[in-house]
């Protein structure tokens, strides 16, 4: 009972400290509002708002028709480009695709001479190059077939209807908004507690705590609950106001379950933060140690780049990162409306990772102070 009271009181102290750092609060506000809204509306992974230019050497009805076939939201309205600027335009990265319609293209086509239409792709634009080229090709092919009055689709012996579950129109913004929230939760959980702990050590207040009738467990749990509470509230507000409100994303699943899982994730990642803090001897060291831990947790959790395409050893390594499980759980809960019955293996994994980090941190906590 007393232990709980201690944990509660110490946690309140943490909250007071946080409240007094106005610059920190400003960063929190930014992280859960602007930084969630902006990428969701302005940068969609996949073929979206792709930049296209057309070098039209034919200047025919057909070439104009091809240009008009490329429409938002997948493509920007193609810009006309003189032939001699084709290379420079691709070099500068101004356009990802440049279509070259050769002279006499329409005439050759009508005469059945099978003219060649050239699509230049900036293959360094990884997320768009390959898929976009395919997509662009399909559109152009269809347009050409239409033009020559052939209808291929009607003759197909088998039809294919593909439907996306959980996000029927495959709106990339939904996912990106969630990804930003998950990223910011990770950053806050690891950095906030770890730095706060080291700061106490630098200021000598940790010594002071350790002579009070408090156990290391109480001190750690107090830090975890208070920081987790702040982040869970930020997450909830961000989901309600930014994701559901401003972005209008229909969240299919249970918000309560999601927030509960978030709390579990915070336990795991905060424990990781404390563990890292016990490895560092000063805040500057901690900052540099945290970067190569956090950034891979963000980049390789499966949100920005698919897990399945990584080498096996890396896939295996990422299974130890709580962020991998949390991201997968988040999408399952919020978009696929999955319940605990379906999710228990991931939940168990996340809990196990959390307990492991917590155990490690606890072990090092007292010993790192005297060293």
């Amino acid at each position: 009972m007393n232990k709980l009271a201690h944990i509660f009181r110490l946690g309140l102290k943490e909250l007071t400290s946080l409240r007094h750092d106005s610059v920190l609060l400003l960063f929190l506000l930014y992280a859960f509002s602007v930084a969630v809204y902006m990428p969701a509306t302005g940068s969609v992974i996949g073929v979206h708002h792709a930049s296209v230019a057309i070098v039209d050497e034919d200047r025919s009805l057909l070439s104009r028709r091809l240009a008009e076939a490329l429409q938002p939201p997948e493509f920007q309205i193609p810009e006309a480009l003189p032939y001699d600027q084709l290379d420079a335009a691709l070099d500068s990265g101004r356009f990802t695709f440049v279509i070259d319609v050769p002279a006499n293209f329409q005439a050759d086509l009508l005469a059945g001479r099978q003219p060649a239409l050239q699509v230049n792709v900036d293959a360094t634009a990884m997320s768009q190059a390959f898929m976009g080229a395919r997509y662009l090709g399909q559109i152009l092919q269809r347009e050409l077939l239409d033009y020559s009055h052939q209808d291929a689709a009607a003759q197909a012996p088998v039809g294919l209807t593909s439907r996306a579950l959980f996000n029927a129109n495959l709106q990339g913004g939904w996912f990106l908004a969630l990804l930003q929230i998950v990223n910011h939760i990770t950053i806050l959980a690891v950095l906030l507690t770890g730095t706060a702990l080291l700061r106490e050590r630098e200021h000598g207040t940790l010594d002071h705590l350790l002579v009070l009738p408090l156990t290391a467990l109480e001190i750690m749990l107090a830090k975890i609950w208070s920081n987790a509470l702040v982040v869970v509230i930020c997450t909830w507000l961000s989901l309600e106001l930014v994701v559901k409100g401003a972005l209008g994303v229909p969240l299919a699943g249970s918000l309560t379950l999601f927030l509960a899982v978030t709390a579990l994730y915070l336990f795991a990642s905060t424990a990781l933060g404390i563990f890292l803090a016990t490895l560092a001897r000063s805040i500057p060291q901690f900052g540099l140690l945290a970067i190569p831990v956090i950034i891979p947790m963000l980049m390789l959790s499966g949100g920005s780049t698919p897990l399945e395409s990584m080498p096996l050893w890396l896939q295996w390594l990422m299974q130890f990162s709580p962020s991998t499980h949390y991201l997968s759980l988040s999408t399952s809960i919020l978009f696929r409306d999955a319940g605990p019955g379906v999710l228990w293996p991931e939940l168990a994994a996340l809990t196990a990772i959390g307990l492991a980090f917590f155990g490690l941190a606890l072990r090092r906590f007292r010993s790192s102070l005297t060293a």
Partner: protein
Amino acid sequence: MSAWAIRAEGLQHGYGKQLALDGIDFKLTVGARCALIGPDGAGKSSLLGLIAGVKKLQRGNLEVLGGPIEQRRHRTSLYPRIAFMPQGLGHNLYPDLSIAENIHFFATLFGLSRAERQARMANLLAATDLTRFAERPAGKLSGGMKQKLGLCCALIHEPDLLILDEPTTGVDPLSRRRFWELVEQVRGGRPQLTLLVATAYMEEAEQFEHCLMLDRGRLIAAGRTAELARVTASGHLDEAFTHFQGGAAPRQALLIPPLPAQSAEIAIEARDLSLRFGDFTAVDKVSFAIRRGEIFGFLGSNGCGKTTTMKVLTGLLPASAGSARLLGQPVDAGDLATRKRVGFMSQSFSLYGELSVRQNLELHARLFDLPASEGRTRSQALIERFGLTEHAGDAAGALPLGLRQRLSLAVAVIHGPEVLILDEPTSGVDPAARDDFWRLLLELSREQGVTIFLSTHFMNEAERCDRISLMHAGRVLACDTPAALQQQFAAQDLEQAFVRCLEQAQGDSPAAPPAAVAAATAGAVPLQPGFSLRRLRALAVRESMELLRDRVRLAFALFGALFMMVIFGYGISLDVEHIAFAALDQDQSPHSRAYLEAFRSSRYFDERAPISDAGELHRRLQRSELKLALQIPPGFGRDLLAGRQPQVAAWLDGGMPFRAETSRNYIEAVHLANLERLARESSPTLAAPAVARLETRFRYNQDVVSVHAIGPGVMALILAFIPAMLTALGVVREKELGSISNFYATPLTRLEFLLGKQLPYLVISLLNLAMLVALNRLLFGVPFKGSGLTLALGGLLYLLATTSLGLLISAFTRTQIAAILGTVIITTLPTIQYSGLIVPRSSLEGGSALMGHVFPAGHFLDIAVGTFTKALDLRSLWPQCLALLGFFLVASALSVWLLKKQEV
């Protein structure tokens, strides 16, 4: 030249609504020696800060050394003429730097030539008896040595005005004596030196000819010390102070009731206690036994092991040998029950600065399990008892040193402990408050039988102890009642006994007084105006030395980058492969199997166990076990043969839209392949030939190998985070730890300060860049096609930009937490999302596009990818280089603007 060194008229200074100084008028002649006394929180530090030009003048006129201090030009010309030593033991020193390096740094800032520097340093080190320790890091010095070093650093430029803020607080009597001897020697050599010193020791103040008395922000008396002291019959300065304070009744002399009948019970016992750190023995076979209810004093020079012994007794440090018992129990770090019976106060302020006085007290009451109501009443009682009523609602961190000490004490006794272990509890507390505190201690000891173990540097406090022990270099030299010790060393008073005892132990007579310090040298070197490369270099060298000595930080910076490059090089790939799929084949005919076979044989798809019904299909997609489910309807084969165009359904997991979209593309491709197969099977003659050929050329990266595009891009990612993190703490850390006062008090300009901090990290980051380029070429085999020079130039500009971003955050934030968090939060989004690593920058819209253009990562990504894969050079990449340069200039200008050369 004016005969006045300082002339103040109507000075007023406030923090928020609170006035710290009000209506201060006084004058001080050149060459005067003046003491500044007053209780804690009277405004002494504020006044000294204003005179030193470290604090910004708010109201009133203040002339220092012949000119108004608020005039920037005059203030700039004063830097070499004023020396300011702020409060606190060694707060403005650099703990990782040795004594010689610390002095060297200050000497360079003040523009001393090598010869001058060496001469003066040798002189000062000899005078302070620090020559032997010249190579020892400042962080490992004792408090007294730190103060002596602080004085050396302050005197190296031979100032005309020396301002010392409680320089001897927390310094033992012997060191204190030597400190003042040193100051006297300096004055002997420089008669024009004006000296202004705040002190908590009345006997020190009595040595100065002039005295300023400050109380609650007002100057209550000023004049010759001897005349001021004469207002009361006793002729003591402290009684004079009380008189000027408003003629309050003279304080009752403190009476020490005798220790009641000796109880045999031992409360604290140490037996042959030793503690070694590596080769260094901090505590060497210390033994003592303290009876219940006794007040036991611990005296000794700074750094002799008093604090360490106390930490062992509280269980903070484990003993290497010997035993320690507390209240009959062996000291055990895990023993919570004993901890509840002990109150501990550590030497450094260790309460929560953001919490108010009352909140701190109530928090501790709760942590010691006092009931809420009792906690509140006790807190209130202690607030009154310790004279904190006026400050009960103030943040503890904003209190002056003396008040903070009182609060720490109040916290140590909140739970009514049986044993109190107090490490220099009255250090920095004014005499009146110290007496009050002793009344409380005596009450606790005599009436409640509380055992008190304390360390102190005040001899009058030592005299009040029942027994004292003298400690030196880890050993207890003598242990007895004060009177017995005085006898033992045949001394007139305890201080003499102490000094004799220490001198015997050190085996040296009082250090042979060295020749008057720096008598022959030229005095302050006039300041070269404006930007100075020398000062910039001094700062950069200091910062580099600190970095080089922090091997761990250096290793994290270098290996962190390599580690990220390797795992991102392998890990980031936007090829969607191995899509997990399963089939719900409701037909089970040769035709349906043939259709599915095309998916099985594709490298893009990995098949999982087949699905048996629609419910399972949904569940498995929901669990994310499958990304794709193919449903073949009953009668598929029959319908196909009958030409009824059966419909195959592909269910995709839309949770991650990008992947779903890619999958859809692949599905359609496989479907088309199926159609072609069916067409071939039905009629050997092919369908109509295509009307036109579509030639798709993948430029720069013909095979669409992810790493060729990702590798150079990842460099932009890594070099955004690590350099920014390296500099992000540069300014804010100095703010938090106190060494920022050197920036306020020396001629360093803002630009010198910022660039000096940036340079070493720029070099480390360039090293990082070189390693990453090598890794790309050697490990990932990314061909390099463009101009290496352009990559180098772009890299340099990019690193300038990212390190200046870190500094900007550092100048903007107030705490290290905010700086670290801000750096990562601000850098993450634009670097990962808007740099073009994943989404091409040309596809960004709105605010995202703006951020993509403003933030440096995108520009460097263009440069890195352009030079690596597109064979570009500066002719095409100059706009990106310009953008980076622009970012660097704007960020640096903002930092200069945000950084203030004076405190508020």
